[in-house]
């Protein structure tokens, strides 16, 4: 495990609780999380299934809101934001890497990476294309620019997802088990790539995993058990 460099807080959770209705019952997925993540950290959220990893990432990713407590992301208290403001926050400050890649199947690789920039607007076509080519070059997929997701391997798809997450130069990248659908060699190369991006751009990475080999590459490990932080 590597030492984390103390920097300013980019994510804070204060006594965060999250309930989900389950039929007539209510299940408490998070039971009072206090957590601070600093800019530039390469943090993994670890824990067994049902420990609340995904719920925690959902709250930090502004795709869900806490039942109680305060979640602050990039200086903004997410519980006080409207849907439009949350969408804007996700678009400009966050990047997502999904376990199942979640690329848009009808767009080619280049268009998938370019898509968030099109949503953001404000760039010329030339600027946009340069940004896409640069990031595609960094993830090593220059030769697959016009291939559709179904023409790429799992590892290549996840590289596209990383490129898509990073193309907007977000402050935080969230990834839920990004290596779960990949073989160990490919998974390892994906973590290497994420680590490289983290070190070069000082982008904060928060990702969940079960894999001990992946865990040991993280700068910080936050362990969750039954909706509570038990270590990290």
């Amino acid at each position, binding site marked *: 495990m590597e030492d984390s460099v103390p920097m300013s807080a980019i994510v804070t959770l204060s006594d965060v609780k999250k309930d989900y209705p389950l039929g007539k019952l209510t299940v408490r997925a998070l039971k009072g999380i206090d957590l601070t993540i600093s800019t530039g950290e390469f943090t993994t959220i670890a824990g067994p299934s049902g420990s609340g990893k995904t719920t925690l990432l*959902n709250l930090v990713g502004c795709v869900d809101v806490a039942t109680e407590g305060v979640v602050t992301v990039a200086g903004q208290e997410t519980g006080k934001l409207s849907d439009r403001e949350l*969408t804007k926050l996700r678009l400009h400050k966050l990047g*997502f890497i999904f376990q199942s890649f979640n690329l848009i199947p009808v767009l080619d690789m280049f268009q998938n990476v370019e898509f968030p920039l099109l949503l953001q607007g404000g760039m010329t076509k030339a600027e946009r294309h340069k940004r896409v080519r640069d990031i595609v070059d960094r993830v090593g997929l220059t030769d697959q620019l016009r291939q559709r997701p179904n023409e790429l391997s799992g590892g290549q798809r996840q590289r596209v997802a990383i490129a898509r997450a990073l193309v907007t130069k977000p402050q935080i990248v969230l990834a*839920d088990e990004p290596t779960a659908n990949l073989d160990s060699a490919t998974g390892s190369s994906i973590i290497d790539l994420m680590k490289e991006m983290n070190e070069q751009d000082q982008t904060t990475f928060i990702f969940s995993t079960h894999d001990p080999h992946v865990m040991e590459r993280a700068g910080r490990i936050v362990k969750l058990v039954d909706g509570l932080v038990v270590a990290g």
Partner: protein
Amino acid sequence: MGILFQIAVRNLIAAKRRSAMLGSALAAVTLLLVVLLSLSQGITDNMIRSATALSSGHVNVAGFFKMSATQSAPIVSDAPRIREIVKENVPGAVHVNARHRGWGKLVSESGSLQAGFNGIVLAEEPLFSEVVQLAKESEYKEGGRDEVIGDLSGLSQPGSVLIFASQAKRLEVGVGDALTITTETLRGNRNTTDVTVVAIGRDMGFLSNWSVFLPRETILDLYGLKPETTGSVQIFLEDEAQSEATMAHLRGVLEAEGFILMEHQAVPFWAKFENVNNEDWTGQKLDLTTWEDEVSYLTWVVRGLDTISFFLIAILVFIIAVGIMNTMVISVRERTREIGTLRAVGMPRVKVLWMILIEALVLGAVASSVGALAGAALCLGIDAAAVEVPSDAVRVILLSDTLHLVVVPRQIATAIVVFTAITGLASLVPAFRASRLQPITAMQSI
């Protein structure tokens, strides 16, 4: 918007079976609408052609002359002056003629029928010669030759008559046969004259069932009328759409010239006799009408067809709209994860809504364009083939013995726009639902 369009088009292509099925249904309904509209326009076209050839100008200056309070005749007593006024005041007129009107019985050796008489000067009637086509002998006579007998020019000779094929069948006469005309003069005496059939025209629907054409002199003799009289001064315009405006203008001019005008009634001249005979005046009153007034009793055909078309299309559109809505709901459900991903990476709700709407609009525009153009091609083909209408009843309704369809580009464009808009409207609910999807739906694995 460009990327949303690309996503929409590619999603349609990706779901090609579903797109093809929905598109085919939409194209078929558009095709049907175009065919029905073209048929309706064809009937209207027939109506204008047959009305303006057989019984009316685009604008008519006719009138009634009452010898006593209870007795009237469809006569204009000073036709030359009216023609002069029309020539001076209607610059859009391409042609002006005058026709006498009458009513009586045509008698042959084996039958008789009632008919409206039109007294014409053939040399003054270029449209009549152009529109009225002569029938082959086989069309009105069993075992007749498959060729046209007779000649329209014979109508310039006194004592001649042109009748139509269905009349020739009923009277069992052919070209060269004699007919006797009996009628009542303006003074109430019966008068009779013998005429020879010089030509037999092809039926032109309802109007040709009771119209026969005689030289003007024959009508003058038959009714004992002065040469300066006529039944109606008929004005043919360059633009028939100007009929109403021209009539209104002429009314003002004729009143200023001292003529007394009847109030405008949008009915043919023969439907006015009862009212005129009940009014307490004598002498001359002019009556101005348009071609639409003169065939107003026939507009039920177009109205009826349009009403049936409207309900038929409305039902089909409803079914299609439900189909589109269901299909789009399924499409949105299948793409929940994709839409959730788009929302998660920062796509605003309104763009999600547009993405689904664009998909529906593209499908609607392509399918309705294909359907409309195929419908237009089909209509043009049917019209060019001059398909014979076998049933007499249908001929009466269609006002023609062949299927006549008129494709109007504006109607094609309207059909495309309307069906595209309907597709968009039907997709509003699924598009709205898609836009309300939470990004967390894509995060089941994050």
